[in-house]
Structure formats: C-alpha cells, structure tokens
C-alpha cells in the first residue's frame, strides 16, 4: 500500500464528507473563475477588453451568466425523448466531478488536528478510474444528441462519441509509460515517484501525447467538432436551454479542470513545488502546496485558452486521421522504447548497451522522419505534376516564340 493510501486510511467519516464537499465547491468556484478567465484571456489575445461591466474588472460576469441561464425559459422540443433529454445533462454534470476523488491537491497537511492529504481516496487503479469516469461522461453528450430528436444534435453526438473513443485510446496509451515508470497506477504513488524528476521531462513524448489527447477528449478547440457552430449550429446541445444547458456548460469546464488536474498529477509532480523551490512545501503547515497545484492547473487551463485563441478548427477526417494514424502508433512505439529501457536498467544491463539502444532509437527516429519528409515531398511533386495533353482545337492567345513560328 502506498504512503498516501495509508495516510488517507484513518480519515474519520466526517472528514471524508467535508473533503467531498470541498472538492465540489472548489470545482464550481474554479468553473466560475475559468469562464471569466477564458473570456478575459481570449479577449486580450484578440486585442479586445473582454467583460468589464459586472463587478470590478468584469469579475462577476460568470455569476451574471449563471443567473441569466437559470432564468431563461426551459424548452423541451416536441420530438425529444423526454426522459433521456433530461437524463443526459445530469449524467454529464454528475460524472465530471468523479475524477477529483483521486487527485492529490496538497502534500501532507493538518486538517482540524488530523494529519491528512487533500485527496478523497487513493485507490490502486486511480488513474484508470479517472478514465472510466470520463468515459461515462461521454454518455451525457451522446444521449443529448440522440434525444433532442433533430439532425444537428444527432450529428454532434455521433461525432463526439467517435472522437472521444479514438482519443481515449491515445490517452490511455500515454498513461502506460507513466505507470511503468512509477510502478503503480495510484495517483499518490505517481506523485511520489516524481520527487526527483517530473514525468513531463523524463517521459516527454507521453506528456505531449497526453496534452494533445486531453484537448480532443474534452471537445475543446481546435478539436471541438462536436459543437462546431459553423457546421452543426451548437452540436449536441443545440436544443438545450436554461438550466439543462447550464449543466453542460458546467460539465465542460469541470472536465477541462479535471484533465488539467490529471495532467498536473501525472506529469508535473502534482502538488509538489517546482525544482529548486522545495523549501516552500513546508510553508503554512504544508498548505502552500495547494497553491503550487492550482498554479499548475491554471497553466494547463491557459494552454486550453491559448489553443482556442490561436488555432482554427480541424476538419473531421484530418482530426480522425491524426488520432489513429499519428498519435496511437507513436505512443505504441514510445511505450516499446520505455519498456525496453526500463527492463534494461532493472536487469542491470551495462551502460554501454543502454547507450547503444538509446542511440539506435534516436537514429531510427531520424531515419523515419527523413523518409517521411521525402515521401511528403514526392507526394507534393505528384500533386503539381501536369500530365501531357493534346493541344486544344480552339484558337488560343499567342504562345511563346517557338510556338508562334509554328502557327505561322
């Protein structure tokens, strides 16, 4: 059993309830902050001011949004399947909070005299549990699309189900290297295994693959094909209004924060301080680690907003091709490399063999990329190639000299 799990094991029942409540409150508050933050940051990127009416600097805009949504008329279309139509946003909003149960948000702290960690539970398959929670969350989107009884939502639901299944594979594969490195699937163990080097450095390819697939998994720009307004109006939530739409809204932002928190846990050392600032971890009786955790989550959230402000939406077939033909093969190859290296070090192979293997892998990658580049160039040349065709039978404007003589 991990150290985290044994610390969490003696939590009294009241503390578990309080922690659950705190997680819920934190998620809702972070969502409010995220909506405001996103609008402000995107506005800055587009040389606008952004929301500036409600509250100082427009800070209350997300509250105003929430009140507006709640007071709107709640419409259920005639063609909708009533039960599923109501069930879908509930599934979406309920499952998005589940992931936070296994995320360690602080180091060891004292909470009303009890020594604990701000994490609900540390199960041995913690990371897979997060994957499971998000995969149930997709049901909300898919069922919303189907139950609305109209075409655009249905297409949006279909797109998102295909999209999430595809990107979940890449995401799951990016976890494998982390599991092998930490020797465990529990979030607590993974955080502890990063006490020397963060996984984002050691397992950089996994980190990149995870970051890409987390954007695909949460239906965010540039992968927001499930709600592409240019093609599908609003996608799966076209027919939703009022509080039901607000639930989807909440679920989307909580999901973003959840995948960001998971990225923090898996690749950025969770609540531990950045290298060189380790002395801060004992400040405020350990609570200062929570600030590090939040900062890392905000970093990922900023990345989400940055992507949205920068990149145009991908075409659907390109997006699927990228997921299946690039992300998945690359992660499988990377897992093979990591597993071999891991086994070599564990079996006590000599430094020379390990260096030779690493060099071989680097060489293979270089050869593969150069081959890919040359084949891409060939394909471009082929696209430029104009086949020989007979001269037209109709009169044409004067051609270059040699031809003019021929005509005369």
């Amino acid at each position, binding site marked *: 059993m991990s150290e985290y799990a044994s610390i969490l094991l003696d939590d009294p029942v009241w503390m578990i309830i309080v922690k659950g409540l705190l997680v819920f409150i934190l998620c809702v508050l972070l969502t409010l902050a995220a909506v405001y933050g996103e609008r402000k940051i995107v506005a800055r990127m587009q040389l606008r001011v952004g929301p500036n009416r409600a509250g100082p600097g427009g800070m209350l805009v997300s509250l105003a949004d929430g009140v507006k949504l709640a007071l709107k008329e709640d419409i259920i279309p005639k063609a909708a*399947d009533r039960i599923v139509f109501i069930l879908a946003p509930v599934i979406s909003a309920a499952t998005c909070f589940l992931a936070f149960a296994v995320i360690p948000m602080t180091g060891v702290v004292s909470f009303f005299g009890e020594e604990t960690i701000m994490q609900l539970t540390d199960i*041995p398959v913690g990371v897979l549990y997060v994957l*499971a929670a998000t995969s149930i969350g997709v049901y909300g989107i*898919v069922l919303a699309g189907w139950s609305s009884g109209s075409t655009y939502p249905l297409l949006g639901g279909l797109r998102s189900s295909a999209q999430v299944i595809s990107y979940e594979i890449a995401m799951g594969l990016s976890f494998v290297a982390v599991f092998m490195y930490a020797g465990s699937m529990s979030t607590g163990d993974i955080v502890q295994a990063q006490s020397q080097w963060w996984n984002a450095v050691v397992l950089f390819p996994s980190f990149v693959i995870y970051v890409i697939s987390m954007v695909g998994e949460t239906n965010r720009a540039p992968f927001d094909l499930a709600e592409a307004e240019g093609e599908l109006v609003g996608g799966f939530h076209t027919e939703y209004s009022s509080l039901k739409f607000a639930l989807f809204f909440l679920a989307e932002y909580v999901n973003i924060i959840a995948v960001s928190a998971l990225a923090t846990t898996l690749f950025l050392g969770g609540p531990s301080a950045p290298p060189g600032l380790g002395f801060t971890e004992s400040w405020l009786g350990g609570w200062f680690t929570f600030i590090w955790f939040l900062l890392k989550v905000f970093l990922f959230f900023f990345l989400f907003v940055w992507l949205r402000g920068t990149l145009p939406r991908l075409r659907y077939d390109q997006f699927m091709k990228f997921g299946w033909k690039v992300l998945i093969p690359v992660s499988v190859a990377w897992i093979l490399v990591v597993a071999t290296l891991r086994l070599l070090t564990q079996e006590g192979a000599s430094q020379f063999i390990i260096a030779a293997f690493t060099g071989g892998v680097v060489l293979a990658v270089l050869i593969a990329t150069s081959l890919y580049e040359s084949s891409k160039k060939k394909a471009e040349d082929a696209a430029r190639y104009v086949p020989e065709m007979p*001269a*037209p039978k109709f009169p044409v404007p004067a051609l270059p000299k040699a031809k003019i003589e021929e005509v005369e």
Partner: protein
Amino acid sequence: MTGEVIVFWTLAPLTVLAALGMLLVKKAVHSAILLAFVMIALAVFYLIQEAPFLGVVQIVVYTGAVMMLFLFILMLVGVDSSDSLVENIKGLRGVAIFTSLAFAAALTSLIARATTGRDPVGLEIANGNGNVQGLAGLIFGTYVWAFEIISALLITAALGAMVLAHTQKSPEARLSQRVRATARFRGESIGTAAGLPGSGVFARHNAVDVPALLPDGTPSDLSISNLIAQRGDVQEVKRYSLEGLPKLDGEDKK
C-alpha cells in the same frame, strides 16, 4: 452492517430491474442505456469485492467503448427505430430460447461447482501483493498462452472486419485539383471551361427542367442535369414562346 452490504442491497435490486427493463422496453436506445447501467452496477460490485482493476476496466472497456459503439450504430440506424417483433430468420426464436437456456444451465453449474462445499476465502491472499500485480501474475504467468491466443483471435477478427469493410477508392477520385483544372482548360471545348451554363435562365421560365438558350437561340443540353434528362423530365422550350415574338425553338437555325 458493513458498507459492502449496504451498497449491495441498494444496487442489486436496481440492477435486476434495469436488466429486466432492458428486455422489456420498446426503443433500442433505452435498452442500450439500461444495459450500460447494468454494466456500471456490475463494475461497482467488482469494486466493493476488492477487485478494483476489474471494476474500472469493466467501465472503460465495456461501458466506455463497446456500449458506445452499440449506441453509435443504433443512432446511425435511425432516431425512432424500435425493435421489430417479426421473425426474420426462420427458427430464430427457437434457437435463441435454446441458447439462453443452455447458457443459464452452464452458468448455474459453474457457480454451483465453485461455491458448494467450499468456504469463500475472499481476495485477500490473491491481492497480497496488490490487486493489479496479482492479476498481472495470473495473466502473464499462469495463463499467458490462453491470453495470447485470445488476443491473436481478437486481432484477427478486427483485421478481418477491416478488410471486409474496406473499399478501394477509384483512381479517378484521387486526381488532384490542379490536374482537374488543367484538364478542363485543355479539354475538347473551351466553351465549358468556366462551368456549364445554368438551366432555364431567361425571362419566361426559371426552373431546373428547362434548357438554357444560347445567344443564337438554340437550347443547350449541357444546362440540364444528367439525372433530370435520364428521368425524361426535361421540358421543351417551345412551350414558353409568346405570340408576336420570335419563336423559342432554335430548330430552324440548326
């Protein structure tokens, strides 16, 4: 009462109800939702019986991927498709009843053999080194051959499905945009290089089934979609000629 007992007795009746509902509801999608519920409930049972890996994988694989594909197909088939009760293949009902009875008998005998005359010991010993490690030892140690053979079978099945469903695109479709543009300007006639004439665009009629008139008054067949021409729905231009004006025929000029 332990937590396990409370979870079991709240969830088990719901699961049975959902399983029955899955058989009895009319719409295929409702059935699929209830099946997903049953799968998630099963996963919770695994979780509370100290098999966390199995429980989570049950959700990720079955609820997250397999059921989602089911739902995908159901939604593609149609928004309001409900199950048809007509027996399409002869004798299917008999076969189905026989198979389900045989399956029930096999399950009963398995459970009976596993439980009668034995005291359950729980998973404590098996989970001694951790649940995941214990499972890994079984899958990649004791049962490695069975595991590998099943995975080879599954890969073969997936490949077979892909080969069967794959369609080769015709080489014409792969011509690049540039080649097609060039071909248009070096083709037989420059007249259509800028696009075919639109249909019926003149003052007296404006519809897809009337040919356009060329400047010399002849109707142009190119302005009519092939599909309409094949159906024989093309109207004659003559019908729209007016008294006292030149004939809209073009026949005399040909």
